[in-house]
């Protein structure tokens, strides 16, 4: 396998990547993936010593649409991610803001004992203005709600059903653990409904926010820790499901591509990871999915996150949602909602994230759905904030259709 930087040599300068970049479409601060990626790559000799003139690099949101569009196999977004790490290192590491937003579980843990108060405070405009001025998190950016209880405390109390015919390990990640325990409960209910027993191996942050912000060293430490904790589950039960498309993508591919982790343990864990909808659709393919969904008379817009498309499995959620009678689903035409993880929370990038998402928000406004469906948590928060509509994970919709 080629190192991501070597794939730059495959570039034939066709500009296809520039036609899909959602960031360069809305701002002159980022010149586009071709210029920044395979072309800029040749001029990065001075990047380690801080001599690179390449400051626009930081405006790449890392959505990865360029890599998916490239017909020649250039890993455009990954080239930029690797270069960003060198830029960040040359600058002496991440600033305070990026250090904080790269550690969602730390923030969640700190706020947990005072979650209602923390949520009140984060909803208060003067507080958000102060936070923006102090560390540079945009005052209007969508923030998750802190949870007073964790997912794991729910899981400990949860009684397994006795009729399981197979078992999976569940990688719930930081978002379910700290912010959306009800999302994790829906995953467990839907799996158990299909006679799948769920185990909860000890876990931790996958490190993606650190990697995408450019701190590969801390990201690698998180990755090594998580691989160590999930290694046994990769053998038994052999399947690890994840409902966060970005964490799932990181476990599947980014440890290898960006952090250069190619050891046997990482490979075993990577190969065992399934996106939850990918797994449920495989059950359906084996006729092992309970299709007795109750009708949901509703209209939804489904937005497949950019990071889901980096799994290479298409849009399994669309096939699953099509099994719910009465549910009308319109597919989003947008490649990216704009927020791309932590990108859209930054004061200097918030407006870009909103402009990138404008097409999606417009489509939602025109379609007038009852709700929006999206697999990735940061996208859900961003879309909910921008459209004022409830935004659910596809599994939450299935869970509802099972319960009606």
């Amino acid at each position, binding site marked *: 396998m080629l190192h991501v930087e070597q794939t730059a040599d495959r570039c034939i300068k066709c*500009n*296809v990547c520039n036609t899909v970049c959602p960031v360069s479409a809305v701002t002159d601060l980022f010149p586009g993936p071709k210029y920044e990626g395979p072309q800029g790559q040749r001029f990065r000799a001075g990047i380690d010593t801080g001599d690179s003139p390449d400051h626009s690099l930081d405006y790449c949101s890392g959505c990865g649409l360029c890599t998916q569009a490239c017909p020649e196999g250039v890993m455009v977004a990954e080239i930029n991610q690797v270069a960003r790490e060198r830029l960040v290192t040359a600058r002496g590491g991440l600033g305070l803001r990026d250090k904080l937003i790269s550690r969602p579980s730390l923030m969640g843990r700190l706020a947990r004992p005072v979650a209602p108060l923390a949520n009140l405070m984060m909803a208060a405009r003067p507080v958000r203005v102060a936070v923006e001025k102090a560390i540079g998190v945009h005052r209007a950016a969508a923030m998750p709600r802190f949870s007073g209880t964790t997912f794991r405390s729910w899981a400990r109390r949860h009684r397994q059903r006795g009729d399981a015919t197979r078992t999976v390990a569940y990688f719930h990640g930081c978002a379910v653990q700290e912010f959306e325990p009800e999302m994790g409960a829906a995953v467990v209910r839907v799996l158990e409904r299909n006679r799948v027993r769920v185990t909860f191996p000890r876990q931790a942050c996958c490190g993606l926010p650190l990697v995408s912000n450019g701190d590969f060293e801390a990201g690698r430490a998180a990755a090594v820790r998580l691989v160590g904790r999930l290694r046994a589950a990769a053998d038994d039960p052999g399947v690890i499901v994840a409902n966060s498309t970005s964490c799932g993508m990181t476990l599947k591919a980014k440890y290898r591509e960006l952090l250069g982790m190619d050891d046997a343990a990482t490979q075993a864990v990577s*190969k065992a990871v399934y996106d939850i909808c990918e797994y449920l659709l495989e059950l359906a393919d084996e006729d092992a999915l309970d299709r007795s969904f109750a009708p949901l008379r509703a209209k939804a817009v489904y937005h497949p996150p950019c990071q889901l498309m980096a799994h*290479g499995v298409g849009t399994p959620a669309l096939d699953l949602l*099509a099994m719910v009678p009465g549910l009308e689903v319109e597919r989003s035409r947008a490649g990216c909602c704009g927020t791309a993880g932590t990108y859209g929370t930054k004061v200097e990038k918030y407006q870009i994230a909103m402009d990138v998402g404008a097409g999606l928000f417009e489509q939602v406004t025109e379609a007038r759905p009852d709700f929006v469906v999206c697999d990735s948590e940061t996208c859900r928060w961003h879309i909910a904030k921008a459209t004022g509509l409830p935004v659910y994970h596809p599994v939450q919709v299935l869970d509802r259709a099972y319960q009606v």
Partner: protein
Amino acid sequence: MRADVVVVGAGPAGLATAVRLAEAGRQVRVIARGNGFTHWGAGAVDALGRLGGERVERPLEAVGRLAEDHPYRLAGEAALRDGLDWFARFAATAGLAHAGDPERNRDQVTALGVLRPTCLLPEPAAQVLGGRVAVVNFEGFRDFSPALCAVGLRGAGVDAVPASAPLPPWDHARYFSAVELARAIDDDDFRRRLAPGLARAAAGADVVVVPAVLGVRGGHEPWADLQRLVGTPLVEAATAPPSIPGLRLFAAYRRRLDALGVGWQFGFPALGVERDGDRVTAVRSEGASRVVVTHCQELVLATGGVAGHGIEANRDGTLTEVVAGLPVEGFPDRTAFLGDRFLGEHPLGAAGVRVDAELRPVAASGDPVHANVRCVGGLLAGHDPTVEGSREGVALATATRTAELLAPTPTPAT
């Protein structure tokens, strides 16, 4: 994963085949290594532009003179005619009306001022050049030289003069490509500010040639609107990639696929197939960490020739079909791949998979290799889409034939 029909490839042939099959009632999934030829082409529908080194004026009539193994002869003239008709309806419904018919070729203006023969032209490129022609570039756009285009046109007997129109102030002052300019021109207000300068540059002209950048988000409305504002017919000239007319078409195809419920995945190439006897049962494609297996009843390969990566050229002169390992006739050694002139004819360009009358790949014996695999578009042997100017026509004719062959059997009314 599972689908009735898996289509591999998202160029003109793959997209048309996927849509036509879905319209016929099959459940379809598209897998592609990336975006395809729509982004690189001239943005018109070529049927047959050149034959035996001569320009073709009447493509349908010329089809009869093609060799028997040419895709048009295999798919049939009716499939070509039907494919072009279908495309014209599809494009018009998407707001991308085309002009022309397969009875006679038309001229498409290119950035080099060449009048290339083509069959169907998007309306913004369809106006025939006559009288005094102004070739106008938008200031700062580097992919179009009005002088070069005008010199070419004069050589072709057109009374053309170069000119330049200023751009109103906008967000992409530092650097821009055709995409940024086309997106700006999508905006009503930007067009209002652009029109007066363009009208001044075009003063006294009967027709104005501009680079093909007049809007990219939707249909041809920005072109029609700007033409109204300027008061002179505007003709879009084909430019270097990315092709804006191709992007409009690609977006229209994607919208249609979404509306028909066709799932697609780009960025991950198909790697191989699984077989049971003479049938392919699944396609294996790259995934983020594992090979992704998509089970299917039928497989359509629309992966293109060597340039599209459907066929790989090996150092020893042999050729490999990359997905199913289908037989491809190679060369004694690799020096035989290419001709002498860069823009001339290259034997490698005509390399492809031989198929029977039902577009199934055949072995040297002439017998089908697989009962449920069809090949469409540039992957097919027996033609060189670039040299003969037949890419989109072959794509549409073979897509049409495939949709006929794979249409679900109608269930008798009870």
